[in-house]
């Protein structure tokens, strides 16, 4: 490495080599495998009506009795229809993040912080800017070109907005501008970056923007200018954030310790700690994400007039988006809860069981709150536009809501509850297991979907499902027994805590099993449904959590 540019390029490669290799792998994978998968399923991605044709065929096959597992087939269809576009968008987003050159700062917990060490290198700010800006633009162009020229992209309306190279350049310029110019306002920066992402992924306005060269060029210039000035100001410590108005500063300075406010017990203090550390933020993000479309609608209504009535497909997308929020948030959070402040926490005089219980309780609070917010937003959707399509797409009889609503809360909470034992182990490989499990689950569903096209396979597989579930449940109970016995033996959990959790488990199971039994009693789905619920409510991994935590705590 003889030049600063080579050194910086090497740093970028060294930091992101796994991601860059994954991107190359994805492009190659789709370029080589995807066309043959499409051919097998009779899906022609180059046809403008590919999706309609595919679903027409799909429905016809379903009618002829070939597809005995419509859900899995639908998953596969979704993969074929949206896989390349989704992979393209995700990789371009990843590339955008790489060229903002930001990183997570474990000390300040800032998610996208530009490393100050770059400013101590003997390179000029214009050099830094041009290197990142030009490098980013070139990388985006190359990646976009690879996706467009090597991978057959299904052509339908929703994807068109993302098939514009200049729009992606503009997105990168805006992301760099916001990330660098708002370095001193980390929270504002995150909100604006999320809003930008939201505008790109969700908002129908993005397709309008991409069709307007003037608007796109203006945004491109604005983003680039912001990035250039932001980098310069960041380097010299300008724009240091807001200072509180003097009256507030004085008020806070005079505030005394609030003596009477004391926690009643260590468990209560720990619950507060977990709430403040993560659950509160999770609830806040869920609320902001759920409110965003409504706020956007209100803004549009102010601009366009009171007769704004959203189309059915937009309302359907919004409903899908809202339902995904708590699930996605809790899954993402479950991959890295409580990684910060570990050293501090491990030295509190708390048992591992107390730490775990506090985490489980706050996860339950955030899951319930997130879903309440989402229900409220969903309830507001009929007022925004044509809700009929949602009813058609998900024709759920009202009585089924008694299972679906608590079931969704349980699933959101479950992400955190079951992954805790992996994440708290402190091991990187173990902590990565939940992602692998999710990928394996999805791959399994795909494989089943493909295999289910063969009626002989499906006829022999379906009767095995209850037996398979019974075996899994037996294994679950056995593992749970061993784990809880070990916890009690080593004093990691108090007997009262074990009994308490078992009582909660029983209550949860009863709350879901009874309505399921009533609603499905006359259908063949009853037994698999009940067994599935028993399998779903976490037990064994809850038992293993204090053990892995102890392993991390006393390495």
């Amino acid at each position, binding site marked *: 490495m003889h030049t600063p540019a080579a050194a910086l390029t090497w740093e970028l490669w060294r930091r992101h080599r796994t991601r860059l290799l994954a991107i190359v792998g994805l492009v190659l994978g789709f370029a080589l495998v995807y066309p043959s998968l499409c051919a097998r399923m009779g899906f022609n991605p180059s046809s403008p009506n590919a999706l309609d044709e595919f679903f027409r065929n799909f429905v016809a096959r379903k009618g002829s009795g070939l597809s005995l597992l419509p859900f899995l087939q639908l998953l596969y269809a979704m993969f074929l229809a949206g896989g390349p576009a989704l992979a393209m968008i995700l990789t371009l987003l990843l590339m955008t993040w790489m060229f903002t050159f930001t990183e997570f700062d474990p000390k300040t917990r800032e998610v996208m912080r530009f490393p100050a060490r770059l400013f101590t290198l003997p390179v000029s700010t214009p050099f830094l800017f041009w290197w990142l800006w030009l490098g980013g633009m070139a990388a985006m162009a190359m990646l976009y070109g690879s996706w467009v020229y090597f991978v057959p992209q299904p052509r339908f309306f929703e994807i068109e907005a993302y098939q514009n190279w200049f729009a992606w350049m503009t997105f990168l310029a805006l992301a760099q501008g916001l990330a660098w110019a708002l370095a001193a306002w980390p929270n504002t920066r995150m909100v604006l970056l999320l809003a930008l992402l939201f505008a790109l992924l969700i908002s129908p306005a993005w397709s309008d923007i991409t069709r307007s060269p003037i608007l796109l060029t203006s945004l491109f210039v604005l983003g680039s200018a912001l990035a250039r000035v932001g980098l310069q100001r960041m380097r010299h410590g300008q724009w240091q954030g807001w200072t509180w108005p003097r009256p507030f500063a004085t008020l806070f300075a005079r505030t005394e310790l609030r003596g009477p406010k004391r926690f009643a017990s260590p468990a209560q203090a720990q619950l507060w700690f977990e709430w403040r*550390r993560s659950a509160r933020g999770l609830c806040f993000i869920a609320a902001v994400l759920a409110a965003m479309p409504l706020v956007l609608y209100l803004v549009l209504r102010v601009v366009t007039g009171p007769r704004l009535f959203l189309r059915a497909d937009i309302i359907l997308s919004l409903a899908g988006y809202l339902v995904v929020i708590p699930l996605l948030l809790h899954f993402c959070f479950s991959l890295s809860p409580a990684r910060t402040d570990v050293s501090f926490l491990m030295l*509190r005089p708390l048992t591992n069981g107390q730490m775990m219980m506090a985490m489980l309780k706050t996860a339950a609070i955030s899951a319930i709150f997130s879903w309440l917010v989402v229900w409220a937003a969903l309830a507001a959707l009929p007022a925004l536009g044509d809700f009929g399509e949602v009813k058609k797409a998900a024709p759920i009889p009202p009585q089924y809501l008694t299972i679906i609503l608590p079931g969704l809360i349980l699933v959101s909470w479950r992400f955190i509850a079951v992954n805790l034992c992996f994440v708290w182990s402190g091991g990187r490989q173990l902590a990565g297991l939940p992602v692998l499990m999710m990928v394996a689950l999805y791959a399994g569903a795909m494989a089943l979907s493909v295999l289910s096209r063969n009626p002989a396979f499906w006829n022999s597989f379906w009767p095995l499902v209850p037996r398979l579930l019974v075996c899994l449940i037996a294994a679950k109970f056995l593992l749970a027994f061993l784990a809880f016995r070990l916890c009690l033996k080593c004093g990691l959990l108090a007997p009262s805590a074990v009994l308490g959790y078992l009582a909660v488990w029983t209550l949860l199971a009863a709350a879901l099993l009874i309505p399921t039994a009533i609603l499905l009693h006359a259908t063949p789905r009853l037994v698999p449904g009940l067994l599935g619920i028993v399998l779903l409510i976490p037990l064994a991994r809850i038992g293993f959590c204090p053990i892995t935590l102890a392993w991390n705590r006393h390495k």
Partner: protein
Amino acid sequence: MNTSAAPHAVETAGLCRKFGSKLALNQVSLQVRRGRVFGLVGANGAGKTTLIKHLLGRLKAQSGSVRVFGFDPVADPVAVLSRIGYLSENRDLPGWMRVDELLRYTAAFYPKWDPAYAEELRRQFGLEPRAKIKTLSRGENAKAGLLIALAYRPELLLLDEPSSGLDPVVRRDILEAIIRTVADEGRTVLFSSHLLEEVERVADDMAMMFNGRVVLAGPVDEVKENHHRLVLRFDSPQSSAPKVPGVLSLTGGGQEWTAICNGKRDEAVAAAARAGGRVVAEGSPSLDEIFVAWAGAKSE
């Protein structure tokens, strides 16, 4: 066994720890008596922090044993941690908390938490109650850590490099805290430090570690008494340090060299005479000189 009446606050026996192929602790046996200030000194990577992590139960002994007030920190972490006030080298307090929240939160774990004392310390350290931890300077962060370590009057105060990177004012606060803790009858302080004048000033007992081993342990006065500084003059200038058996280190140049020896003063004088040198001055070395001498002896 009545563990609270254990004679030693800290007791390790044959403690070993390996990280990969590196032996971080090698047969460490130490006793820290109650009511004493114990200074742990050693070069970087000597194993001080590893030893402290064993006392806190953050690391499990691979062989040997660790007892804090008679309790095993791994088997009974709550019993041990509720007796210890700990200030970490990394000052890893949660950045999102405010100072008053930190105090309230910490108070919940310690029945003996003294709110009046906590408030007094907060004022003395000049910490704003509404200030966020992440906005505090390094020194203020150390003070906040010290505050929550002291406010419940722990039986054992454990300080890992408490003054590293801090200005003299904060260092003074920490030393005062140590002195005040010991003034409370029966309380014990164990601290690791690079600043040997601090150890010399406040510690009753000390242990010196090199490469995971305790090479020297005992009361500070005794350690100093057992070491001698001899100024040797040779008849002719010496181009390199002369070989004098029984001497830990020899520094200087030309005809005059300063030797630090451990205990065997007469033997060192005799050996110096055989090598052509005579003692022209002698005295008691500082802990700093002793440390450097041992460091040199161990690196050879």
